């Protein structure tokens, strides 16, 4: 017999599922997953860990892009491998678009557009009458887009 101090892996998954509430929570209309969106931004935008909510300031403007961005599809609901909880989104594309973006914001449109993650592309990326696609990393515990380890 032995006792090993640890954060329960199931707890990590349940955080991503919105099961636990240590502070001021929200009343949910249903048990369905929230709607998450991804918006694109130009190099003039200031986005970092202090970003709390989606903003239209310096959001991309161009053919094939609508303010607010694309709705993301959750391709893997919160799960765990070993002691890491993770989830995955399906790749998303702005088709027949002419846009230039330097980064993106993933946000929760169900919960008052609260920020989830800021993505830096490392430079301007441009589509011209073409497709602009964001490819999410491999869906596993060491690479997935959102992980709790």
């Amino acid at each position: 017999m032995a006792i090993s101090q640890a954060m329960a892996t199931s707890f990590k998954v349940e955080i991503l599922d919105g099961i636990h509430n240590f502070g001021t929570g929200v009343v949910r209309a249903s048990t369905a997953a929230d709607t998450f969106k991804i918006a694109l931004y130009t190099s003039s935008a200031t986005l970092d860990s202090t970003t709390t909510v989606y903003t239209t300031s310096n959001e991309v403007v161009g053919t094939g892009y609508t303010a607010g961005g694309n709705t993301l599809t959750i391709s893997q609901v919160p799960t765990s491998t070993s002691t890491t909880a993770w989830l995955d989104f399906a790749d998303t594309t702005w088709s027949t678009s002419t846009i230039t973006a330097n980064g993106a914001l993933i946000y929760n449109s169900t919960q008052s557009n609260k920020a989830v993650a800021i993505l830096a592309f490392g430079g301007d990326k441009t589509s011209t009458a073409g497709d602009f696609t964001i490819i999410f990393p491999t869906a596993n515990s060491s690479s997935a887009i959102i992980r709790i380890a």
Partner: protein
Amino acid sequence: MLSAGFFEGDVKVLATQGRGFTPEEIAERAINKVISVGKDSHPTIRAQAEAYKAHIKDVILFYLKEAVQSDRTTIANRLRDAGHPELTKLLEN
């Protein structure tokens, strides 16, 4: 002390100019979602996995091309039905 950390993975951005993605480009994306070969795997296992990955990619590519061709057939019929048979030539390779 109990601790846990939140992490976010790195995304890639692919963009095209004056065209959409080719079946080959999409097959590459698909196979990387389906099969991930660890860089620390045993060389023999890795070689087998890479060979399997290449085979599956070929299968995905074949059916992507089939889907594109089939969709062009549907679009060509819609153009003909709309009275624009001459536009179907634009769909030919």
